[in-house]
């Protein structure tokens, strides 16, 4: 086969394809959790705490709906199962963050405690779903507590972030 330079319009096109493909690939792979600087890390902690709160709230809604007989057992189980996954994912996310300064480290540890403490009640909600019907009060109370602990932790992170912006 001979190559013919007067077919060149195709070459920039090929290069363009490769560049677009690479950009897309990189964009898709860009890890969100590994941010070097502390402000970024605290942002991540805040995001993960939001995930955790979202999981607790989902579990709470599912348990309430199940207790009221408004949600089929299987669906409730899936919803709470997904919440457990999200909650553990958040713990993992916060735990694997790299923070440099002691101050940020302390905030992170508090957040990690709050997120870890939230996993138990969510998992307990799933256990409750699997058991024969019983009042959901205990489960809901535990979820409520976890929720307020998470809110407190979120507040601390926000304060720490605000301190960074206005030293």
């Amino acid at each position, binding site marked *: 086969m*001979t*190559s*013919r*330079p*007067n*077919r060149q*319009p195709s070459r920039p096109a090929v290069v363009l394809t490769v560049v677009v493909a690479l950009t897309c690939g990189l964009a898709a792979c860009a890890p969100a959790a590994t941010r070097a600087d502390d402000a970024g890390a605290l942002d991540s902690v805040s995001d993960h705490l939001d995930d955790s709160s979202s999981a607790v709230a989902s579990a709470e809604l599912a348990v309430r709906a199940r207790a009221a007989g408004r949600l089929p057992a299987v669906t409730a189980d899936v919803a709470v199962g997904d919440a457990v996954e999200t909650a553990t994912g958040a713990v993992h996310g916060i735990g694997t963050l790299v923070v440099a300064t002691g101050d940020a480290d302390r905030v992170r540890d508090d957040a990690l405690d709050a997120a870890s403490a939230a996993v138990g009640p969510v998992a307990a909600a799933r256990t409750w779903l699997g058991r024969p019907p019983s009042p959901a009060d205990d489960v809901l109370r535990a979820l409520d507590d976890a929720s307020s602990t998470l809110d407190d932790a979120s507040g601390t992170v926000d304060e720490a972030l605000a301190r960074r912006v206005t030293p």
Partner: protein
Amino acid sequence: MIASDLLDVPVHDDAGAQLGWVVDLRFVLDGAPDAYLARARLHGLVVSPRTRTSFMGFERSSVRHPWPVAPILRWWHRGAFLVHWPDVARVPHPDEGAGPGDDAAVVLRAGYTAYEPGL
């Protein structure tokens, strides 16, 4: 010879001046009748002076829509012309132009005539 041996190839006049690029081949079905259709005779080359990109033929048709795509393409290909096949003096060999600087081109006869390309 195949159509892509001609398409996108630069066009020079007999003095070597560049006139544009072959953007299309015009056929006329007036040859000897074949089984169903008359044979398609290569009637001429459509040459566009400004671009060799393939295009949608807006400068050869009366279609004016969709705006602004049609007007832009029509403007881009302004000055396109048709040369009849007998005015083509030389066609590059398919292997020509393989090396850089090797300028394979369709060369037109001296005193060639340019026609309106409209269909």
